[in-house]
């Protein structure tokens, strides 16, 4: 069990990281990353939804007819998203407003459907829960990475607190849409460069 959880963890965080390796869930990854706090909230929301919907789908997997499974899964996901949305509206109205439609768009986030189709369909509930959770963690880590770079360069702040000692003119371009694309491209480039180097090393050893 523990080793299963470990494989699931390393797979979702690095080898098959949903954002930079599988290119899933890009919409929200780009849209909310101009502020770190928004990305953090979005990531936690996604973790919650992915983990619980993977758990539920796996629990119900033998009862859901094959032909209509897509729509059933979507409805399960949508109900968890409603929970997140209502919770945010009640407790963090500011952030809820800033995230706007992107909370609702968690429903169509490919990561959740991907985990449901690829993992929760065939595996028992508890491990599916961890799989979903770690997929969410993998997503959050990348989002925070991108958001920190964009926020520091674009606003000169971290989580809304101004940087001490360093003063520079903020790069307005970093908070505009194009830089989201460039940042994610750089992250993908770094990760596949590291991947390639490791593969080469393995070849040399053999």
């Amino acid at each position, binding site marked *: 069990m523990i080793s299963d959880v470990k494989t699931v963890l390393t797979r979702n965080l690095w080898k098959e990281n949903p954002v930079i390796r599988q290119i899933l869930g890009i919409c929200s990854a780009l849209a909310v990353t101009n502020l770190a706090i928004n990305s953090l909230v979005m990531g936690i929301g996604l973790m919650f939804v992915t983990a619980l919907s993977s758990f539920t789908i796996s629990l119900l997997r033998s009862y859901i007819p094959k032909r209509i499974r897509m729509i059933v899964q979507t409805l399960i996901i*949508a109900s968890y998203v409603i929970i997140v949305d209502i919770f945010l509206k009640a407790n963090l109205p500011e952030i809820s407003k800033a995230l706007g439609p992107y909370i609702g768009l968690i429903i169509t986030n490919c990561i959740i459907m991907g985990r449901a189709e690829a993992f929760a369909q065939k595996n028992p509930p508890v491990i599916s829960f961890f799989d979903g959770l770690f997929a969410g963690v993998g997503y959050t880590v990348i989002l925070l990475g991108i958001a920190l770079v964009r926020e520091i360069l674009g606003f000169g702040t971290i989580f809304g607190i101004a940087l001490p000692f360093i003063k520079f003119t903020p790069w307005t371009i970093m908070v505009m849409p194009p830089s989201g694309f460039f940042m994610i491209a750089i992250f993908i480039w770094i990760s596949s460069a590291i991947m390639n180097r490791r593969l080469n090393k393995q070849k040399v050893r053999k």
Partner: protein
Amino acid sequence: MSAPAINPFIIFFASIITSNMVLSNFLGMCSFISVSNEFKTASGLGKSVTMVMVVTTIINYVIYKFVILPLNLEYLRYVIFIIVIAASVQIIELVMDRYLPDLHIKLGIFLPLITVNCAILGISLFMVIRNYNFWQTLLFGLGSGLGWWLAIATLAAIKEKIGKNKIPKGLEGPGLTFIITGLMALAFIGFSGIFIIQ
């Protein structure tokens, strides 16, 4: 929040150019990245997205105005919207199969994919948040669809040309696609200030 004064035609042009769905709102990225290797396929997907978008935004608008609001079902709107989208994609598929079989064979594979295209749901959510009336919604849906089509067709055309060149190691595939998209977004920013709808 109230914005009834905006001319629907301004919304139409703005949603094609200045607030393009992909390049400034990042909606529909999944299929945008994965189905843009060939110009013809990309353009076909663009057409189907435009069509589905117009139909679903109108249906969602009517349902939102006449069912969800009077019954106070605001909290159920995600579920209702997603069901409407899935159902109308199915219906469009059936109708096309019956009356336009050629087009159905060409676009057939894309239609089920569209259900999970976030641009479609995103449009409906934007429509609610921005309080659009009927004509604004219609032209917003149409314009966003055309904007999405324009973006994916352009990207596919650029990718076809650039694919033959030497590309830095590790940047092939998605990495390069993002860089191209970023440059396109940068170019589209040049239009900003002409129309503002947000």
